[in-house]
């Protein structure tokens, strides 16, 4: 009846796990209580849970990402403190529990922090930048979000019911096979990313079609804002590479559930098939995350330097070259696994070549700022910090691309330092810059600037303290994923790294304080113009926050940075008089399918097969019901549009 699920699944095995579970459950209860106290359930249901508006979906993605950032960060600081404590004594974490923590940390930060953050920013901005009223498939967009949320829910509940994977965020067999990991941990890992992966693939289709078919009249591809270009390229990578993740996790699941032998050591399986298929997704994933961040840096550098982006065409070509090369380097993730020297050399050289377009981009951002009127707002701090740190990460990346060097550094904390050095400045700094930059567009008031700078310094210095020691420790020979460290010579640098984690904690708390302070002072910080930074692209032509139809009148744009040019020449971008506008209707079906997918994933993890099949049938039924819907739009009349636009004072219509 309940498959493998029993009372043993509760986290009574350690007080640390129990408190983690308690925090998770309490957090959920507090959220429910707050919503009930403010009688906000109806509001939440109507405005968010059932919405198909790309702007609200974008906000939900970012809220999800920030919640998961908190969870992922607590995993990180637990690892750091455990390592420091273990040099002197034993520490407070069992080896098995430590393994769960680093597996959850990687899984959460990649799949449920970085990806939703990216999807959120893209969702919010993409239609605004290309002059569209929504993405191409609003319902599918909501479905993508709810599938991602279902996956995140599975990771969160693994803390309360059962255990999470101990096989690392990459889940390599044979360790993740049923013989070595008979528990439910790896299944939680498989099902959470399998379900959210579907959502991501659908988002990519949505973004690509939106860019191809919904651009404002006059806007040729080479007129698109650079962020839109990076979204197009990142979506193409998702479309081509996420199937590999689906295949890798599905075959691993088949091996575990049906005792098949795709990836086993015995009976003719081949674990290298997993490594290859997984990294055919996993390497491009880095570029999926980093390209939109590069797009944000491009927008930020141009806007805050009051200048055109230097080398627009070269930025586009560099993005395209990175897109193609991202799929040709996956093998550098397992140089040490016994490929021939020839194969290793080919992938090593390909890896080094990909640094060239990336370097070009760095120079272009610096040339954009050069002789520009740079306004040192906290948003551009992220770009400056990124340039300093990312170059260091790039240099250590090239060191890894030299195969003999990689043989020595692989599986030490040097590698850990390297990829955090790419992901934190390259991805997270970019998204935080985007968060800062577009926050007034989404909510109508700016974020507090004083706290913005404090947050930046917290992350920047925290990052340096937390990860530069790991380079040194790696060169000293400290292996990664180590719960207990006995060599006292590692102690001083581990302490520095722990202090770095505490600085990041300060920055994360700062983000919460910044939100609180900004909301409190929102009247002072209000953006009445819709264009607080003297922006250059279409999203700044409309009021903040934008009306649900985004553009009351279709914009016409036929050059790069058309809005900046129009402001210079005193022209209007808006076409014709107000018209009736058709907008997609809200629907609960996407939310329902998300909830059932969560149930299906949970049932599959615990092998409650009847529930799993009932859920599948329910998803199918909901999809068929939805397919009967021929009229999913409602009309806003020209009169109502006029009224809404006139209520935004100070914005010229």
């Amino acid at each position, binding site marked *: 009846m309940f498959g493998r699920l029993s009372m043993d699944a509760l986290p009574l095995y350690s007080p640390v796990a129990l408190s983690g579970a308690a925090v998770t459950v309490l957090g959920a209860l507090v959220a429910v209580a707050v919503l009930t106290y403010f009688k906000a359930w109806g509001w939440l249901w109507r405005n968010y849970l059932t919405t198909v508006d790309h702007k609200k979906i974008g906000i939900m993605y970012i809220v999800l990402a920030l919640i998961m950032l908190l969870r992922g960060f607590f995993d990180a600081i637990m690892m750091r403190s455990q390592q420091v404590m273990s040099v002197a004594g034993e520490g407070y974490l069992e080896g098995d529990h430590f393994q769960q923590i680093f597996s959850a940390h990687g899984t959460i930060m990649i799949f449920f922090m970085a990806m939703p953050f990216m999807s959120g920013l893209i969702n919010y901005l993409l239609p605004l930048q290309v002059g569209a009223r929504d993405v*191409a*498939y609003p319902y599918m967009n909501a479905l993508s979000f709810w599938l991602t949320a279902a996956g995140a829910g599975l990771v969160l509940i693994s803390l309360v019911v059962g255990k999470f994977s101990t096989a690392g965020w990459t889940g390599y067999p044979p360790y993740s096979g049923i013989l070595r990991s008979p528990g439910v941990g790896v299944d939680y890992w498989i099902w959470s990313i399998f379900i959210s992966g579907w959502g991501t*693939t659908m988002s*990519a*289709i*949505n973004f*690509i*079609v939106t860019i*191809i*078919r*919904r*651009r404002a*009249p*006059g806007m040729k591809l080479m007129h698109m804002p650079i962020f839109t270009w990076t979204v197009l390229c990142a979506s193409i990578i998702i*479309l*081509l590479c*996420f*199937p*590999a993740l*689906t*295949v890798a996790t*599905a*075959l691993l699941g*088949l*091996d575990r559930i*049906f*005792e*098949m*032998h*795709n990836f*086993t050591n*015995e*009976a*003719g*399986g*081949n674990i290298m*098939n997993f490594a290859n*298929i997984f990294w*055919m997704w996993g390497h491009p994933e880095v570029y999926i995350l980093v390209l939109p961040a590069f797009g944000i840096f491009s927008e930020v550098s141009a806007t805050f330097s009051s200048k055109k982006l230097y080398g627009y065409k070269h930025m586009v070509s560099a993005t395209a070259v990175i897109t193609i090369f991202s799929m040709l380097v996956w093998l550098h993730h397992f140089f040490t696994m016994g490929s021939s020297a020839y194969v290793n050399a080919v992938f090593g050289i390909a890896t080094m070549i990909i640094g060239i377009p990336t370097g070009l981009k760095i120079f272009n951002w610096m040339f954009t700022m050069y002789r520009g009127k740079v306004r040192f707002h906290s948003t551009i701090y992220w770009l400056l910090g990124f340039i300093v740190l990312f170059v260091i990460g790039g240099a250590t990346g090239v060191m890894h691309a030299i195969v003999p060097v990689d043989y020595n550094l692989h599986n030490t904390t040097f590698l850990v330092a390297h990829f955090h050095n790419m992901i934190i400045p390259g991805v997270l700094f970019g998204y935080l810059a985007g968060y800062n930059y577009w926050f007034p567009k989404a909510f109508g008031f700016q974020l507090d600037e004083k706290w913005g700078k404090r947050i930046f310094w917290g992350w920047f210095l925290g990052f340096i303290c937390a990860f530069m020691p790991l380079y040194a420790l790696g060169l000293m020979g400290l292996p990664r994923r180590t719960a207990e460290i006995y060599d006292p010579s590692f102690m001083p640098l581990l302490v520095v790294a722990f202090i770095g984690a505490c600085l990041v904690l300060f920055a994360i708390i700062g983000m919460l304080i910044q939100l609180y302070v900004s909301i409190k002072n929102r009247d002072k910080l209000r953006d009445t113009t819709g264009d607080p930074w003297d922006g250059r692209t279409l999203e700044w032509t409309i009021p903040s926050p934008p009306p649900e139809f985004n553009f009351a009148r*279709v914009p*016409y744009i036929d050059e790069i940075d058309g809005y900046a040019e129009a402001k210079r020449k*005193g*022209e*209007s971008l808006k*076409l*014709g008089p107000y018209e009736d506008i058709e907008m997609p209707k809200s629907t609960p079906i996407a939310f329902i399918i998300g909830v059932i997918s969560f149930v299906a994933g949970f049932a599959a993890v615990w092998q409650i097969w009847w529930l799993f099949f009932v859920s599948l049938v329910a998803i*199918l039924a909901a999809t*068929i019901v939805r*397919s*009967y819907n*021929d009229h999913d739009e409602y009309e806003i009349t020209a009169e109502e549009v006029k009224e809404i636009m006139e209520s935004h004072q100070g914005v010229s219509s």
Partner: protein
Amino acid sequence: MTEITASNAQEIEDKEHPMGNLGTPASNAKHGERALGFWFYLMSDSIIFALLFANYEVLINGVADGPRANEIFEIGRAAQETALLLLSSFTFGMITISALSGKRNLALIWLVVTFILGAGFIVLELLEFKELIDDGHGPQRSGFLSSFFALVATHGLHVLFGLIMLAVIAAQMLSKGLTEPVLSRLYRVGLFWHFLDLIWIGIFSIVYLPGIL
């Protein structure tokens, strides 16, 4: 102030649906957009199959003292399955032609024929799986058989979903008639069905033919 005429805005909307003009320019653009997205989905799906093919090719010698491809595959059944599926692609073409010329009943008849052919394919495939498993050549036997079952059953699952889509589109043709949204959906179901044919040709040429020859 430069005046820009609203006719520029029409520029993007004059795109035809691949099945010809189903309705107004605006609704054609909408259905064309859906067709485009479906093409992207199929590209993504074909990569799933490409990787399953690659997995099969790598594991083809991982037989673990079990049977090899040439010992278990029968050309006769594979040929029958191929015939059923290819024929169903032809009959799907007949559904499209009948539907576009407004002959709903004829379209429904061809739809039933297509469904029967597809269902026949599934039955043959299940029989093959059953025989293999009964002979002790199930997916647990060896890496080779695991990859074979993973690849062929994924295709089979796709056909099963195709059959469900056929049933839904038949129900909609009956209850709604040959309306514009129904025709637009029919086009996408058609893309999916023909795509399955293409994948099957890959399976026949890469799995069955070399196994038998």
